[in-house]
């Protein structure tokens, strides 16, 4: 069994911001069942700021805890600030992860970025729609 920090175990046992946002501004899913890691991130965005974020995870303790920590870190940030968050920031905030688990920690940030991109694309589309009407 791999050794996790107490903080990782705490986020695994009591994940923050777990679940779905029904009226999410955007959502994204990354990973695959075949790889053993999959995550969905839901964003609520107001005035280019993340006002709410939730996640669902199929994956190991590293996956769940990095997702949980990521949501804590980015909640309240502007989209531009959130885009600057790296997997390294999250892992450091958790007090480290076994090296072999680094790839799991990437997924949380990758899914976040994909959700932000999805939001920006849909926002751009609606701006375009408005200018057409």
């Amino acid at each position: 069994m791999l050794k996790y920090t107490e903080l990782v175990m705490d986020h695994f046992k009591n994940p923050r911001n777990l679940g779905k946002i029904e009226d999410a501004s955007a959502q994204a899913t990354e990973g695959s069942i075949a790889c053993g890691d999959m995550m969905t991130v839901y964003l609520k965005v107001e005035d280019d700021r993340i006002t709410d974020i939730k996640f669902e995870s199929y994956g190991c303790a590293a996956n769940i805890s990095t997702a949980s920590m990521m949501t804590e870190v980015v909640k309240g940030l502007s989209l531009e600030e959130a885009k600057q968050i790296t997997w390294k920031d999250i892992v450091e905030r958790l007090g480290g992860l076994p090296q072999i688990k680094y790839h799991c920690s990437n997924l949380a940030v990758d899914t976040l970025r994909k959700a932000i991109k999805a939001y920006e694309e849909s926002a751009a589309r609606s701006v375009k729609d408005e200018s057409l009407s």
Partner: protein
Amino acid sequence: MKIFLDNCRTTRVLPEVAQVVLNYMTNNFARPDGLYESAQEVYDDLTKAREFFAKSINADSGEEILFTSGATESNNVAIIGVARANRNKGNHIIISALEHGSVMSIASQLKNEGFEVTVIPVDDEGFIKLEDLERAIRPSTILVSVIAVGHFVGSIMPLEQIGEILSRQSHKIYFHTDAAEMYAKFPVDVKKFKVDLMSVSGHKFHAPKGVGFLYVKKGTKIEPIMYGAESFDKRRPGGENVPAIMGMKRAAELAIENIDSSLSNLRKLQEYFIDKVESQIDHVILNGPRGEGRTPYNVNFSFRFIEGEAISLALSMEGVEVATGSACASEKLEPNYAILAIGGDHERAHGSIRFTFDRFTTKEQIDYTVEKLKSVVSWLRKISPIKAGR
């Protein structure tokens, strides 16, 4: 409450066994090769231990027992030793797809040395097909190694029929079995199985870690893989781990005394556990066979839509210790090969949990395990983005 259900990885040393070990550490501590009374006593005890182990597998003589550090060393000595010693006869070796990791590694090393290795597949329950074995045999085949009991999915291999096929061949093919999950749990008869070599590990039946033996049938052409000063047994240099060997003897005596009652108790417990999980948890797959073809010491389930490392970690927080076949829990980040070998996909491997019992496992422990399993599985499914029907 702590419930250890990873007894296929290792077992606790019984107090009666630890007493024997302690005695050979602190009192009868001599090496068997001294020319004085205490050494002679140890020599006699080791000789009797060899005879005991020989008798316990229906071998002809104590000289056919070689003490080792466990099944990994036994597998190395057996497979590499026979392969190298018989290279002039052929360079082909056959193993099964469910071999222990040590046998897989040895086979890959022998490939580097120019041997050819055929891995015969297993069916969806984890049994090798005898016709596949017969097809794989070539004039250059010198050795077949098949695990006695699959350590992940619990299938009991048809050793007797394999031995029969090999003995019918027109040239000698050595037959080795890794019996780490069979010895001291099932009656073992090397004559009935027609095996030439058999690996055993002590810590699988309540002896200390780091001790085991290899049965080497008299007349087997085998080279040593370690060299050094001769001690008790010239085939393996270095001082014997006398305390552990004597402890393993006591552990084997206790296990064999109770072999029938353990088997029948565990069979009932296993059926009870499987029924309970299948009736109370949705979307579970039993990995490996049902009934008599499966060791009663093993149950392996895949829980769909969730991942095994998270399941095992969450169970461990509730005091239940188990193994998983998830890639996330493996050092190489690869899904469990045994689940893939029986036709499972990656999801099934990632969601697999192995529960392995010892003869002291109780119904109360099983009840507690199922209760915790239900809550852990339901919690992880709640947070998973993958849902049934999607």
